């Protein structure tokens, strides 16, 4: 009987298209908006993915990775002296203005790495040698920086080219790939000492300390020990990631805006699918009543409706996720807007779409359950 159920569904092309379209739209809205939301959240933690360390030591009042309060220069040695710390390296993070060829300015995120170890180095080097960053006035710029700072030039910036960073000459010795910052700033890496020279002098210049637990110590235990002995805040990478995410949830309207759209997608999907499927069942009630009169049990009719509903669900979901994936490929190639599609996201959307289908089928099932087979004898 299930093949007949499907033929009944496919035969009503307008409703079939409406059902699949509604679920495709709902899938797209929920998945795409969630992917952009997750991408945006990932941007908020770009420091973590671009500098990578097991322990992050910051001022005791720092709650998230993008709001750093300067430490004293001696604090790095205090961390090094803590039992359970294998090593600790200073990092300087600052936003500076880079001058473009056309005279305009663009902000960049300048990261000063420990001169010797280069801990916090760029995740992927595309061109040039990492070690060259130790040369005078040297900068390693990410792809976005190359693109942004090339504006007004005859050809894009390359290795050996120079630009003006806070009134000082900076020479590009490497091009790297880095995750984009939440505010859209490109990343530029230099050594700690040179970064201090690019930036205007301040009383305290150390932004944070990256550390590694000693052998036999977990990152959690070492972080706890650092807090105990220094009074500074020490996060494990995971803790800082989630602390940052939570901060954006609490202090910005971003989650509310995205969740509203995601909920809207759910409501639209449920409404279109539920209403259309109900109308489909209602229009076929006489035929379903005839099947009931001929001896089709309520459970058989319910299974037929479930087959119909889940078929459009699978199709709508499949098309929706395909479109989102294509959208993702396009935006990832452009780098904007943010986009992140972990497998859990389509899996969650799948569960929601199937829930919508189950609900839609349930509306029809209740209707069919109540119908008396004698309906077929009424004129």
């Amino acid at each position, binding site marked *: *009987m299930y*093949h*007949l159920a499907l*033929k*009944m569904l*496919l*035969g*009503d092309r307008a409703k079939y298209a409406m059902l699949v379209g509604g679920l495709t739209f709902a899938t797209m809205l929920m998945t795409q908006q969630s992917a952009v939301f997750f991408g945006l959240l990932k941007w908020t933690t770009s420091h973590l993915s671009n500098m990578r360390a097991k322990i992050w030591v910051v001022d005791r009042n720092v709650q998230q990775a993008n709001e750093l309060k300067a430490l004293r220069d001696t604090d790095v040695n205090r961390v090094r002296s803590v039992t359970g710390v294998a090593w600790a390296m200073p990092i300087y993070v600052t936003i500076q203005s880079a001058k473009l060829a056309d005279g305009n300015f663009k902000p960049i995120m300048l990261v000063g790495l420990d001169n010797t170890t280069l801990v916090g180095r760029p995740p992927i080097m595309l061109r040039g040698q990492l070690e060259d960053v130790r040369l005078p006035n040297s900068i390693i710029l990410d792809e976005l920086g190359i693109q942004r700072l090339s504006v007004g030039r005859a050809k894009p910036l390359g290795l050996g080219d120079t630009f003006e960073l806070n009134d000082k000459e900076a020479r590009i010795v490497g091009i790297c790939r880095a995750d984009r910052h939440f505010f859209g700033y490109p990343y530029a890496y230099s050594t700690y000492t040179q970064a201090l020279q690019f930036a205007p002098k301040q009383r305290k210049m150390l932004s944070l300390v990256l550390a590694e637990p000693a052998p036999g110590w977990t990152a959690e235990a070492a972080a706890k020990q650092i807090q105990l002995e220094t009074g500074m805040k020490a996060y494990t990478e995971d803790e800082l990631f989630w602390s940052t995410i939570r901060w954006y949830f609490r202090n910005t309207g971003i989650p509310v805006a995205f969740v509203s759209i995601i909920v809207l997608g759910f409501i639209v999907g449920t409404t279109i699918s539920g209403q259309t499927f109900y109308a489909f069942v209602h229009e076929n009630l*006489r*035929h379903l009543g*005839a*099947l*009931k*009169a*001929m*001896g*089709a*049990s309520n459970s*058989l009719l319910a299974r037929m409706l479930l087959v119909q509903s889940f078929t459009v669900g699978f199709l709508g979901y499949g098309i929706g996720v395909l479109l989102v994936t294509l959208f993702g490929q396009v935006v990832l190639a452009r780098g904007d807007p943010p986009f992140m599609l972990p497998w859990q996201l389509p899996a969650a959307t799948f569960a929601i779409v199937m829930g919508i289908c189950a609900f839609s089928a349930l509306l029809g099932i209740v209707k069919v359950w109540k119908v*008396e*087979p*004698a309906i*077929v*004898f*009424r*004129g």
Partner: protein
Amino acid sequence: MSASTSTQLAVHVRAVTKTFGTGEAAVPALKGVDFDARQGELLMIVGPSGCGKTTLLSVIAGTLNFDGGEIDVFGSPLHAMKPRHITEFRKRHVGFIFQQFNLIPTLSCIENVSVPLLINGVSRRVAEQKAAAMLDQMGLPGRGHERPTNLSGGQQQRVAIARALVHEPRLVICDEPTSALDKDTGGHIMDLLCAVARHPERSVIVVTHDNRIFKYADRLTEMEDGRVQRVHGQGGNHDLIE
């Protein structure tokens, strides 16, 4: 008398009552109906609109619950059976022919006819083979893959008859089978139903307003105001049939 004790009786109805609605809105549709249908006959139930003939047909077919009385259909006491068993009974033993045919327009004729077999658990391949053979018997060879909407009214009713008979039911219930057809087509359909009723272990019950087809009945039960008024035909009055 009980149907199980009489091999001649197909349907045995005694003192059946049915009321729609409750309180002041209650409308009694059947007021103690006594009624018999025999095996191997085509019996018609006639009467004015609202007299209860369709309600009677519905309760005999097991598609509508009744309030009181007893109904035996080929030895099965519907009044004592659970709804699940009544559904099972309909599935195996009752074929339906409806006024508006009730063919599913998005399915082919073969698929429509195969429905009762599929409901009875027959495989799709066998069901469609039997459905095609039944359509041939109904004079529709080669039309099995067409949609019902491509057929004339008479042809659609033939498809509906094929669907009603394909699982070889013992009781065939027909609700106004000719009212949507012209005189000649209606006549052809009634010829077919008469042939169907000639089966010794089958009974065909037809509800109709259409006095042009009264002559096809073996017996004719006349209803009025929720009761059987008289029976015409074998052993009774032949006036109405003639």
